[in-house]
């Protein structure tokens, strides 16, 4: 029974590091498939120190993943949606045994799961600056739709004055500054 190895070298290992180096959280779920010897099972759970134990008296887990060898089976599943490395709920490991002295093999498999890549933020940009006949200045702003942007001006790059606060749209936003006539 390799449960103590799983608890120490997988559960405690990733809890101490707040997940994998890529920032993926790992949860260990112990599934008890025998309800005939409750007190012995409870003693075993306590000795191993499992965080989370589910009871499976109908052997649904064995029916899905395969029977156990001396009742043990170890399965690693990716629960991340939009991971670039694996499908969500893809099985990464499914065996009745692993080398107890090589938990790093299990960790290496666990750490093949990459988190979703965050979309690059849209950089705001000013464009189409033009002066109207009245002297007013018009300019266009593009940015992430729905996000608010402050537009400021400066004559010395030290002190800045706000000209407008604009909310970007998918089509781009145009602003007209009539104060340019006076200033």
């Amino acid at each position: 029974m390799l449960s103590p190895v799983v608890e120490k070298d997988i559960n405690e290992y990733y809890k101490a590091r707040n997940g994998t180096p890529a920032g993926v959280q790992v949860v260990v779920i112990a599934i008890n498939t025998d309800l005939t010897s409750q007190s012995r099972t409870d003693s075993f759970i306590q000795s191993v120190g499992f965080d989370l134990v589910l009871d499976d008296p109908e052997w649904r887990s064995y029916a899905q993943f395969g029977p156990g060898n001396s009742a043990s089976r170890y399965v690693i599943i990716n629960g991340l949606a939009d991971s670039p490395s694996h499908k969500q709920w893809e099985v990464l490991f499914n065996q009745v045994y692993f080398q107890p002295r090589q938990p790093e093999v299990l960790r290496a498999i666990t750490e093949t799961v990459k988190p979703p890549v965050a979309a690059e933020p849209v950089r705001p940009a000013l464009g189409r600056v033009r002066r109207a006949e009245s002297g007013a200045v018009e300019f266009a702003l593009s940015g992430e739709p729905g996000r608010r942007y402050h537009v400021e001006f400066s004559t010395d790059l030290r002190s800045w004055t706000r000209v407008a606060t604009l909310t970007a749209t998918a089509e781009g936003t145009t602003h007209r500054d009539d104060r340019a006539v006076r200033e």
Partner: protein
Amino acid sequence: MRIFTLSLLLLAFGQAAFPARAAFVHVGEVAADLTLKKRKTGETVSLRDFAGKVIFLDLFAYW
């Protein structure tokens, strides 16, 4: 003859307890949801409740 009978019984039990091997989920395939109860509280928990994490299942029985 006894051995043969025992073999047949084991085969029959095996067939009843588990689906054909091809029905098991293998590496690279997608696991179906699995709903069980927490031993401590009896609260129902599903694999899908752990979306966003890598899930390590330790199937065990301690006789």
